[in-house]
């Protein structure tokens, strides 16, 4: 049984994602900060892309850089800097690939009874920046939807 993922646009500038994991916070935190673990889950299997580079220096002021390959000649990069790193409980980083409009992301890991509540909070510099991210980010879920459609197609064939 999978736990539910919740998404809420909390204000004009904020997006919040929450999910409970069946494990202690230090392990969930580890999976967010160790490249060899992060690489295993960040790109959903159905997405038509691969993560070819994953560099993470999870210390205050340290940087991260992810490079994705879509099967074409061009790759896509996302990168930024860690602003806060509290092992097992809190991680804050910038998203700099889109320039000034990128959000600051805060991930908190709250452990309770062997489970961990993960909250990802994106704070955008302005309403416009979040609106623009939504406009382009609308495509970020596209691969999943396509996959579902193609599965449906497969099951009908």
């Amino acid at each position, binding site marked *: 049984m999978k736990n539910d993922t919740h*998404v809420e646009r909390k204000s004009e500038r904020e997006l919040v994602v929450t999910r409970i994991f069946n494990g202690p916070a230090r392990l969930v935190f580890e*999976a967010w900060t160790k490249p060899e673990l992060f690489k295993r*889950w960040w790109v959903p*299997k159905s997405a038509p892309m691969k993560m070819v580079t994953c560099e993470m220096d999870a210390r205050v002021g340290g940087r991260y850089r992810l490079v994705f390959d879509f099967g074409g000649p061009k790759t896509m990069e996302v990168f930024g800097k860690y602003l806060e790193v509290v092992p097992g409980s809190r991680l804050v980083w910038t998203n700099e690939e889109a320039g000034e409009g990128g959000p600051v992301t805060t991930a908190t890991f709250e452990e309770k009874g062997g489970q961990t509540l993960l909250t990802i909070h994106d704070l955008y510099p302005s309403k416009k920046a979040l609106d623009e991210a939504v406009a382009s980010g609308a495509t970020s*879920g596209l691969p999943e939807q396509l996959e579902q459609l193609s599965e449906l197609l497969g099951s009908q064939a």
Partner: protein
Amino acid sequence: MVKHSEARLDASFAALADVTRRGVLVQLGRADTSITDLAGKFDMTLAGMMKHVGVLEQAGLVRTEKVGRVRTCKLGPRQLQEATNWIESFRQLWAARFDELDNVIEDLKQKEKRIK
């Protein structure tokens, strides 16, 4: 009316049944792209790419515009993504990631057990 929308759905499914065409939609979601550039990106002949784009265009998923000698492709009027349901698609992306993350955490837990 029902017949008509069913036919459109069939056309969409047929259009989406091909990995290259799905890739083209993902690419166009990021930026408008000329047919020539699409052919290059997917390592395919111009004629081959024109066929794929034609199928997507018929399904209404892509539209093309010719300016001078360049034919540019954009996402069409029947985008799968409506502005109203972006939050659901965003949620699906995270849910898919987190389902994989469950496996990673399960592995870590097993490893710790073995060490103890």
